[in-house]
């Protein structure tokens, strides 16, 4: 907070002082007046960075080479790629991958929030239980967990309610095999595993919120739930999101471990196909391109989510790439029409337009 104060008062100050400095001393004023230029009136020559140009040229060359091989090397076998890209097996695999990702994210972060709150709780029972959960699920390899969940019927053929410390389930009883399907085992395994990691990420975010915030909320009589969900969590989100996005993205690809319980997600589907026709490279490219598309969409989502939670944390939000592009086109258009490019309003301006852009971003 105190850092913010400094910045809040300085700009106005600095400007005023500079003005005063210029007018107050009379002797060198004339001298300075001659040197004073209006930046809008003259052409400003930006500094040339020759090193950047050389480096840029090298990068462009290497990338161009790679692209050239894509067209000339027929081992890539683009025909096969095209044939399988939208094939039913692949698309079903993709859908399954997305389902697993969404499911594990929801279970993982939902449970993760509870575990993080538990670890920070004053009750030692809650905090040690949360600690133990995290310790356990970070220790057990995910693959082992999946296999155990899938084969739970071997350990406990029936699950139910009944007399404690007996296997006499006289209230309800179900066969484990019917309760835990392949899909359920995958969701449980991925979700519970993810929860342990998410919990620590969320806890880190919660710790980063200034304790004065909780105190102020407490002094206002805000109930615990409101304090947590409306005051602390939104502020913690700023540091949680980058790490959380990492987790979700690794889930997309990491979901491929469910092959151990023979679930045909994207990667497994592709493997099944190339084991049959031995066209390994084009089919791997099919998987890679799909993963890239999904990760790209997630990254865009992350950008806007971060932006949403950044509101209030900086005085003025920088324009989004889209806004920047629109501004650039408008400037170019004005140039073409021989208009005055300076007349195009800047993208970043007063705080209020930022608010409206922010709303659009949501």
């Amino acid at each position, binding site marked *: 907070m105190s850092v913010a104060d400094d910045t*809040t008062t300085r700009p106005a100050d600095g400007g005023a002082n500079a003005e005063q400095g210029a007018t107050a001393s009379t002797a060198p004023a004339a001298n300075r007046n001659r040197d004073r230029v209006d930046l809008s009136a003259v052409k400003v020559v930006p500094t040339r960075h020759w090193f950047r140009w050389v480096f840029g040229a090298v990068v462009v060359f290497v990338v161009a080479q790679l692209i050239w091989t894509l067209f000339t090397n027929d081992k890539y076998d683009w025909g096969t790629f095209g044939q399988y890209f939208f094939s039913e097996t692949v698309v079903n695999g993709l859908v399954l991958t997305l389902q697993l990702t969404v499911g594990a994210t929801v279970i993982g972060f939902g449970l993760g929030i509870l575990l993080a709150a538990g670890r920070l709780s004053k009750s030692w029972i809650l905090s040690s239980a949360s600690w133990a959960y995290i310790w356990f699920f970070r220790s057990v390899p995910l693959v082992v967990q999946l296999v155990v969940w899938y084969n739970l019927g071997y350990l406990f053929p029936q699950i139910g309610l009944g007399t404690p410390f007996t296997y006499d389930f006289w209230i309800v009883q179900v066969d484990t095999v019917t309760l835990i399907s392949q899909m359920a085992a995958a969701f449980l395994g991925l979700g519970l595993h993810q929860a342990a990691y998410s919990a620590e990420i969320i806890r880190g975010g919660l710790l980063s919120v200034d304790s004065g*915030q909780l*105190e102020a909320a*407490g*002094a*206002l*009589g805000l*109930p615990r739930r409101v304090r947590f969900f409306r005051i602390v969590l939104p502020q913690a989100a700023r540091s949680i999101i980058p790490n959380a996005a990492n987790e979700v993205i690794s889930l997309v690809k990491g979901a491929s471990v469910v092959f151990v319980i023979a679930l045909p997600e994207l990667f497994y589907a592709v493997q099944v196909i190339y084991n049959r026709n031995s066209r390994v490279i084009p089919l791997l490219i099919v998987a890679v391109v799909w993963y890239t598309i999904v990760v790209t969409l997630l990254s865009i989502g992350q950008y806007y989510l971060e932006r949403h939670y950044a509101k*209030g944390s900086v005085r003025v939000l920088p324009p989004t790439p889209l806004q920047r592009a629109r501004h650039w086109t408008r400037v170019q258009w004005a140039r073409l029409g021989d208009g005055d490019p300076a007349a195009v309003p800047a993208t970043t301006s007063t705080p209020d337009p930022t608010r409206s852009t922010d709303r659009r971003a949501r």
Partner: protein
Amino acid sequence: MSITLERPETTEKDATPIAVRPGRVEIHDVWKSYAGVPVLRGVSLDIEPGEVVAILGPSGSGKSTLLRTINHLETIDRGSVTVDGEFIGYARRGDRLHELRESEVLKRRTSVGVVFQNFNLFPHLTALENITAAPLALRRATKAEAREQAQALLERVGLGDKGARYPRQLSGGQQQRVAIARALALDPQVLLFDEPTSALDPELVGEVLSVIRDLADSGRTLVIVTHEIGFAREVADRVVFLDEGELLEQGPPSEVLVNPRHPRTQEFLAKVLA
């Protein structure tokens, strides 16, 4: 000085907003230590409804701690603190004090507003949302009512046009004025200020003090920890001097600030006014 009044346990106040009536704060023989180090040593202080009390004292003397005991942000080891005869943190049954559940404490706390040195505004909410947060969360008002009331409060602190701004888009003085408006949103009977201007640049202090001055005139009970001696002299009905956890001297500003009796007070004032 410290007479503990016997009052019947007041029943839960209902949510209907009542015209502000100032509260009485009774602090009786309060002791508090952190890890064996005493911070408050038998402090007693009765604050009349509508009184404006300024607490002075050197750094580390326990001023903030004392202020925070009033709304139970800090627990005490011995003694009692009541607001209008009610313990904020406990319920009295017979001669026993039962620790209250958190939700109960929170409800009672709303009769005491706090303004912090570092403002502690919620940075992710606009000025207006900062003010409406508590009335909405506690179901004291509908959305429209809360917004209307918040706007009126903003106007009162001279920021009627800044409701849509986020705290970081406001100057320090403006932020502190929003914080005051936020504290007023629940119509507290007592307002506590912990060095409300010490995080501000000198030229911004005035605007905050003038808002507090208006509040003092409006008849609320105010307890102000401050280093602004001049301000204390002007608005306070009573000045209290605290040193090493002990209340050494108190009285009207014209006495304590002009002719302090205790040597520690004299020393402190000499240093601050130098």
